[in-house]
Structure formats: structure tokens, C-alpha cells
């Protein structure tokens, strides 16, 4: 080490090329191939409707919240409120702007949600930590109230619900489970790609710097307030799109109560379990949250049906689910993604561990 010379090389042609050249991401490409080709061919309607569509949308919502909470360090318990904004805004755009293509309506809904998120992010200039969390709680209740109180948002329907006015793209009807699955998958892939770009960019580094030590970030020249508000806006954009997809591609018919505080907690659990400050963690967390109850249900019915009554069985599942969450968090507070990474490291060395 010590015999290194200290002069800066005039040009640095050799190393950075080696370092920046990327290998083809084969595992990712395989995954995309499976998602776009294999699943549409093999998957049945139940799998698409009940498992894959909600899993993907929850992953997207987790991604949105993770940008704000995991990357920028601003804890929010108002995620579902911003999902509601996206859902109701997209509904309004589809209903009131004739001929507006579906992708534009989704983006429009996301932008409106981003605007609302930006406004609710303004207090983050002054309020930090626990207190900021309470303002996001206020946002959650306020937004839920707005979409219940003012009938304009649900077009004066007596039921107080919204359903997709039209779900089509270039003349193709997307009402079939496969159509909705492909719509959701495409949205998720595009937005995930953008999120990866963002967190690897200077903006992402500024966010993480603010998360780790906001005073130091300010002194070295990062505009802290602006980047916090940006994080609120971008996060709400993702949540807004996720909310619109949740309402129209999964539920079909939604109301303000589809986006209640429980949904917010669900999204927060996804990022805590999956891994804060990780993109892949959102998918793993969403898989855990949406698939494990189904699995427990199957196991419970297989093993205990007849012996325990159905209501008790449901409660038992919730208890086991809660205990599993606690167990995972005790084992690895940084989430399942860290657990998997450690496992991967160990497998690399296996069987020659020493």
C-alpha cells in the first residue's frame, strides 16, 4: 500500500472503463421473460387476479413509499392517502376528459398525486421524525375524508364508489385478467426502471445523504428542503399510479375506504419487512405480505379443517403471520433483502466456508 505514488494521473483511461462496463443482467432478463411471456401463457385467471396483480401493485406502492422513507428517511404513514388521490384523479381524468388515452390518465393521476404529496411535504422543512410522521397521519385522514365528503370526486354516485370508466389501450380491451396483468406489469417495470435510475443518480445520493445526516448534507451544499419536497412528490407519484391501478386493475370498483389507514400500514410493513433503502426489497416484502396469508390459509385448511371452526382459523393465521413478522425482524432488522443477500454470500462460499 505505502509504496503507491500520490500524484493524480493525467488521464484515467484504463480502470474506469473496466469498472463501468456492465455484464448483461441475465437473471433480470430471465425474470422479465417469465413475467411477460411464460406467465401470460401458463397463468390461469385465479393466479393473475388474486395473486400476481395485487402483488405487483403492492410492490409498486412499496417502491413509492421506500423512495420517501427508506431512501430519504422521512417516515410516512399516509401512503394510502396518496394512493387515493391517484385513484380518484385518474378516475376524474378518464371521466371528464373524453378520448384521453389510459397511460396519460395514469400519468396525469400520478402527477396530481405528486402535487398533493409536494404540498404535504412542505412541513418537512421544519418538522422532523416522529412529528413529521404525525403530519402524514393527518394527511391520511384528511384525504380519506375529502374523497368521502365531496360527491364530485365520485361523480355523485349514490354508492360513493368509483369504477373504471374505460380500460382500453389503442382499441384493445384490457378488462380481461390477462389485459389487466399486462397493464400492471408494464407500469411496474417502467416505474421500477426509473426508480433504479433515480436512486443511483446524484438525486438519489442527495436523498440518502439527507437520510443519514441532514445537517452535514446542508453544509456540503445539498439543498435539503428542496430534495425532501422532491422525495415527497416523486413518492406520491408512484403511490398515485399504484392507487389508480389498485382501484381499476385489481378491485374494479373502489371507494375512499379502499385506501384507509390499514392499507398505509400494509405498505409500511412491506418496506420494513422487505428492506428499507432497497428496490428489490419492495417486491420481496410485497410477496411476503400478499402470499404468506394465502399459504397459511392453504396449510390451515389442509391440516385443521373440521377440527377448528373457520373464524378461529382466520384469527390463528393472523397470529402466526404477526409472529413470523416479529421473528424475521429480530433475525434481520434490515429486512428480507439483507437476509437473502447474506444467504447468497454464504452460498457463494459453500461448501468451502473456511
Amino acid at each position, binding site marked *: 500500500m505505502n509504496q503507491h505514488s500520490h500524484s493524480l494521473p493525467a488521464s484515467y483511461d484504463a480502470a474506469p472503463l473496466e469498472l463501468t462496463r456492465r455484464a448483461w443482467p441475465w437473471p433480470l432478463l430471465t425474470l422479465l421473460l417469465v413475467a411477460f411471456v411464460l406467465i401470460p401463457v401458463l397463468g390461469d385467471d385465479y393466479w393473475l387476479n388474486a395473486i400476481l396483480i395485487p402483488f405487483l401493485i403492492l410492490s409498486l406502492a412499496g417502491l413509492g413509499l421506500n423512495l420517501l422513507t427508506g431512501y430519504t428517511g422521512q417516515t410516512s404513514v399516509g401512503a394510502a392517502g396518496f394512493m387515493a388521490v391517484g385513484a380518484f384523479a385518474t378516475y376524474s381524468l378518464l371521466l371528464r376528459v373524453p378520448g384521453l388515452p389510459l397511460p396519460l390518465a395514469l400519468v396525469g393521476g400520478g402527477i396530481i398525486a405528486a402535487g398533493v404529496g409536494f404540498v404535504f411535504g412542505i412541513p418537512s422543512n421544519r418538522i422532523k421524525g416522529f412529528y413529521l410522521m404525525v403530519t402524514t397521519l393527518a394527511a391520511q385522514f384528511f384525504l380519506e375524508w375529502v374523497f368521502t365528503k365531496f360527491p364530485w370526486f365520485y361523480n355523485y354516485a349514490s354508492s360513493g364508489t368509483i369504477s373504471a370508466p374505460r380500460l382500453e389501450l389503442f382499441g384493445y380491451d384490457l378488462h380481461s385478467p390477462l389485459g389487466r396483468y399486462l397493464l400492471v406489469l408494464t407500469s411496474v417495470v417502467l416505474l421500477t426502471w426509473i426508480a433504479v435510475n433515480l436512486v443511483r443518480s446524484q438525486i438519489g*445520493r442527495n436523498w440518502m445523504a439527507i437520510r443519514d445526516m441532514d445537517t*452535514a448534507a446542508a453544509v*456540503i451544499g445539498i439543498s435539503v428542503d428542496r430534495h425532501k419536497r422532491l422525495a415527497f412528490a416523486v413518492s406520491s407519484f408512484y403511490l398515485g399510479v399504484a392507487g389508480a391501478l389498485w382501484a381499476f386493475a385489481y378491485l374494479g370498483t373502489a371507494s375512499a375506504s379502499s385506501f384507509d389507514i390499514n392499507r398505509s400500514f400494509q405498505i409500511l410493513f412491506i418496506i420494513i419487512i422487505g428492506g428499507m433503502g432497497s428496490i428489490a426489497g419492495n417486491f420481496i416484502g410485497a410477496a411476503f405480505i400478499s402470499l404468506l396469508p394465502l399459504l397459511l390459509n392453504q396449510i390451515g385448511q389442509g391440516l385443521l379443517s373440521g377440527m377448528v371452526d373457520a373464524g378461529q382459523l382466520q384469527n390463528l393465521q393472523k397470529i402466526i403471520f404477526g409472529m413470523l413478522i416479529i421473528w424475521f425482524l429480530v433475525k434481520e432488522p434490515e429486512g428480507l433483502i439483507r437476509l437473502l443477500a447474506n444467504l447468497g454470500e454464504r452460498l457463494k462460499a459453500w461448501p468451502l466456508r473456511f
Partner: protein
Amino acid sequence: MTPQMAEPILQVQAISLSFKGVKAINDLSFSVRRGEICALIGPNGAGKSSLLNILNGVYRPDSGEVVFEREHFRGIHPLEAARRGIGRTFQNNALFKKMTVLDNLLTGLSRHTQSGFFAQALGLPRARHEARQFRERAENILEFLELQPWRSVAVGKLAYGQQKRVELGRALIAEPRLLLLDEPMAGMNAEEKHEMSRFILDINRDLGTTVVLIEHDIKVVMGLSNHVVVLDYGRKVGDGTPTEVQSNPEVISAYLGTVH
């Protein structure tokens, strides 16, 4: 060219600063020539850190002004100071603990980012080009400060001395013309101090960076700097070359203690 002949890069002119009536700095003037290593020494509470905080705009002096590269400032904003080429490290490391060494270095370039939000979000060629340039600068710094083996290690997991080096690198990556180091060797053992001194000398010699540093270890100061300013209770009690300062009776009584 010896620093003694060069023009001043920085002039502190009759600066005073007080906190709730307590004078931290009292009518202080001195100048730093381009290319020199200037050490600020003095007992705890002498106003050394406060002075650095004025120089990079964290504090605003009650009176007096700072002249940096012939421009006069009363109070300069930290962002402005950084943009004009004043870099800074802190007494207690102000690093981003969960981020990697490489990412920490790159945050030093945040205020130099030209590409906008959409360019970065969509990975447009402009943003990619800029990212590549930034990465090259970071790689140069990693090599210069011998930090390559820890490139992708979270800074919080590094030893203290290495963290100090990362902080130096974060200031250095923006290519400052004036580098303010607040106790760069605090808490280090002799070997680490030696290594850090070598880096500071190399930065000064190879990159032509003017350095103003605060240091308590008098042996390090005498070996490293070619200009020493001695502060005591916010006043200047000595100013000159290390040998001049060492033989100044007022300095000896204020800082080094009375001669036995």
C-alpha cells in the same frame, strides 16, 4: 515559487464574533498566501473552529470582513463559499454512515450537478455523461487517498482514520482552491497522523491547494505548515513561520506554557 512570494488568497480583516455577549473572536486579522499550509493553533476555546465557520459561511461575523481571491465578504453563504472553491472538513466526522465510500465522495459533487431531474430519472445521455465524469473524479480521489479497497464499503464500518480520509476526499473531489481542515488528525495514533500529514502535503504540492488547518499536536504543526497563526481567547498572539512562532515569548506563555 515559495509561498512567501505569492499573493494572498485569503485575508481576514478585523473580524469579531461574539455569542450572547461572550467574545469568541476579537478584532482578528491575518492573511494566507496562495499555496501555503497555514496552521491555526491555540488552547481550547481560542476561537479556531469559530474562525473556520466564518470562513466557509456557517457563522456571520459581527464586524470585519473576509477577502477571498480579491472579493470582499461580510457573511458568505456556505453554498456560495463551496461554489467559489472553499472546501471544508469537520472536527467530528460529518459523513453519511450508511452510504458507501464511493457514494460519500460523490456527494461532494452535488452542487456541481448540471443535469436535471428528468435527465437523471430517464438516464438520458447528458446525465450518463455527467455520471461518468463524476465517477472518474471519484476514482482519482480513491487512488490518491489509497481508499480503493473500501470503495463499496459503508462508511460507518470503516476505522476512524479511514473515515477522516473519506471526509478529506469528499472535500477534495470538488477541487477546492482553499481547503479548511478542522483537526484532521484528532484522535489518531502516530502512524495515522504521519499518513494524514503526507496526504495533506501531497494535496498542497501536487494540486496546489492552499490549506488552512487546525491542529493541536505541535510537532505535527511544525513539520507540516509553513505559516502558523496562534490564537488565545479570540486574539492573535502570534503569526509567522513555525520557528518565529516557537521563539515568540507571548506564544510560549499563552500556549506552550512557561519555560521551565
